């Protein structure tokens, strides 16, 4: 099936099997391997990307469902000149990553939340719920929590 995905502002005209999930198409067809697969059942959130600004588990969405939609992945987070996104700076500063495998998912999750509602940072419960929606096995989460608050305050 022919589809067009607009990924990080660039159009990708693709011919994909309807059964292929978005994460596989981003990784294999668009060669954007920053989106990682941790469970393929929608639990861990490592594959989180933004579709029309909304955070989704790209392992649970078919690529064909995203035809014509705007997708943002971790590769599109920094500015065009490579200037880091506030979340990228904050994650580093707070040691919010160790192995880095879950990190793109947390970044996109937080980017989606902060961009759609910057007021979220003022609501501790919502920020806690946000951090609690993805899995990380290295950091113990608190550094991720601090990083999101830090980025939000910039």
């Amino acid at each position, binding site marked *: 099936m022919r589809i067009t995905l607009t990924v990080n502002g660039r159009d990708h005209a693709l011919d994909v*099997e309807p*059964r*292929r999930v978005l994460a*596989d198409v981003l*990784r*294999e067809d668009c*060669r*954007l*391997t*920053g*989106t*990682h*697969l*941790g*469970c*393929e*059942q929608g*639990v*861990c959130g*490592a594959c989180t990307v933004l579709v029309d600004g909304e955070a989704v588990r790209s392992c649970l969405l078919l690529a064909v469902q995203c035809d014509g939609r705007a997708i943002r*992945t*971790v*590769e599109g*987070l*920094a500015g065009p000149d*490579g*200037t*880091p996104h506030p979340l*990228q*700076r904050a*994650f*580093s*500063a707070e*040691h919010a*990553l*160790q*192995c*880095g*495998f*879950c*990190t*793109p998912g947390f*970044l996109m999750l937080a980017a989606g939340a902060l961009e759609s509602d910057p007021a979220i940072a003022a609501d501790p419960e919502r920020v*806690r*719920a946000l*951090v*609690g*929606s*993805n*899995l*990380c*096995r*290295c*950091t*113990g*989460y*608190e*550094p*991720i*929590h601090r990083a999101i608050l830090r980025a939000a305050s910039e």
Partner: protein
Amino acid sequence: MPHGYARREDERLLTGRGRFVADIEAPGCLEAAFVRSAVAHGELREVTCAPALEAPGVLGAWSAADLPGLPSPGLPASGPPDEPVLLTTLTSAEAVAGREWPSLVTERVRYAGEAVAVVVGEDRYRAEDGAARVGVRVDPLPAMVTAAAALRGPALFDGLSNVALEGSAGAPIDEAVWRRAAVVVEACYRQQLLLPTPMECRAFLAVPRGQELTVWCSHQMPHRLRRELSGILGWPAGRIRVVAPDCGGAFGSKSATFPEYVVVAYLAAMLGRPVRWIEDRLESQLVATRGRGQDQRVRLAADADGRLLAYELTIDADVGAYPHLGAGLPMQTAKMATGPYTTPLVHATVRSVLTNTMMTYPYRGAGRPEAATALERTMEELARRLGMDPAELRRRNLIPPGRFPYDTPTGRRYDSGDYAAALALALRTLDYDRWRAERDRRRADPDAPPLGIGLSCYVERSGGEPGGLHEFGGVEACPDGTVVARCGSASTGQSHETTFSALVADTLGLDPALVRLIEGDTGEVADGMGSFASRTAQIGGAALRRAAETLVEQARLRAATLWELPVDQVLWSAGTLRPARGVAPTLGLGELVRATGPLRVDERCTSGMAFPFGTHAAVVEVDVDLGAVRVLRLVAVDDCGVALNPAAVHGQALGSAVQGIGQALYEGVPYDDDGAPLLPNGLLDYLLPTFAEVPPIEIASTSTPSPVTPLGAKGAGESGCIGTPAAVVNAVADALRVADPGLLRMPLTPDVVWRAARAPKAGDDR
């Protein structure tokens, strides 16, 4: 750092430019999917691969019978005679003898998920299409899921015992000791099976080129993998290059050579095409290695003043279906059974029992959590029986600082420590007395949810075992003035690039930006052990420091020759050489190399075994109606000697503490009676802690340098898995005052806690 990133690793990992195995593009790469037995134990009667070949995009499907040349994983390889034995204690030749672990099942299935066939396709979808069409017929045999069942049951390997390995540490204790003691606590514990669960599952890509094979693998020990693949495939090691690129966590589970790796490497060579296997989560939960898995019985004797007299630990470990991976690991528990106390008599015995489950293998802590948890749970009970403050009971028995090096009854020589200082800091950080007052207040109030405080003092071992306490480190000065450092380890998330670049730069007096670390590539690093046993800072760091120091000496010698001066007239500072007197110009490292040729130092450094230690303390509140445990506070005081990178150590302590909470409260692999793991819904059944389960955690440290390691460093990173579980369970025991400590079986699910809350109470109120 570019753009002000805190770690070297961060820029690529934060921008999607990390390079994990599944990210590597190998043109023409095929994908492997394994057909796995749903039956845990049975005779394999038939495998029908032909239908798989009818699925579009499937290039091949094979059972063991179709691949007569397919070799099997053997014993973890020791090196050639001139190289020290690699992993001396994980298993033994005797345990493995006569118990072949086939790469694909030949006659008998011994664990659920064991691979009976492999299918390769153009992509994972097609490979799985093919795998779904493969017919498998297994005639079931009764499954033996527990050690107790396997001790009674039929032989897993005809003619051989189900006990793969027996051992002991310490001398047997005279029965009179128990008879005469004022108090003897007896208890039984279960150290449940855990899934290490790195966020990246296993991943293996084999790329053949001519007579050579490049393997990309998410792995902790690339040189071991090369050595073992070479031995198994019968290829000279020089024809195999192993690269361990970015790794999405390992926690001990990624250091072996698994059957899937052998199959994929074999097929890649046979087909002359790249083949990869990217394990998915369901597959990982079925057949990745498990941690822990011990049934324990303990006896602990003390006099009326709470002085420990004797401790006995009896372990039946359910090590899984084949003894190849971790049959010897429970001996680590036996050797560490003494813990941090002066107990004069300690005896620990181990039986490693083969069962119809996937095998156990090191998982963060690896034998030491099992030792610490058994002892510390029992100390809690002893304090209750004596009517003594658990902190005071420990204080009376901790090995005092003046007694190091301390030879334990179980054969360890502890290098250094101030165990009481760590305990005192933990109590102070927690505000122990305030929480005890709150606990007592709640005990007097029938409407208040019970609260409990739990302590856990631990001592661990870092570096590895004798024969494996070495690591490779090399430093090379480049003509452009930069420096390349090479380390035989492989980072799985522990900030090696940041830490070791800074260490080498510091030794040379250079800007860290001028130093680049290369590791995880047998093509670039001559030799190596890898990342396990919390060893890399302790031993790899020492090798790099020494290599850098030797490089300075060699640079001075060269400059002395160049300037026709005695070497003591050549000074080195901040990466620059200059004569002690006179006006001759200074010479940078790069200029020296340009003038005198390549300058490179390779070192292999050996360290002693080190013994990090600490005290963890937890406060919990229990909802007795729901059986829910709420951790209100956790304090972790760890001592890893000299910390090379305190931020990294802090991160490791925090992350491992959360894994320790996971073992105490949430994680475990239940099996049904037929030997199938009861995790049909993946990570919805195997509950990793999320942020919602993380309590306020305070990490603190003391620092007692090790006298037996060159940098004074001890291992860091496993403390939480070792110290935290018993602290949490002891806190629940304190809250509920359960008479039988064995009732609080980990994980403390609501079901376990609800029942324990209704069980007979201990009488005493200390």
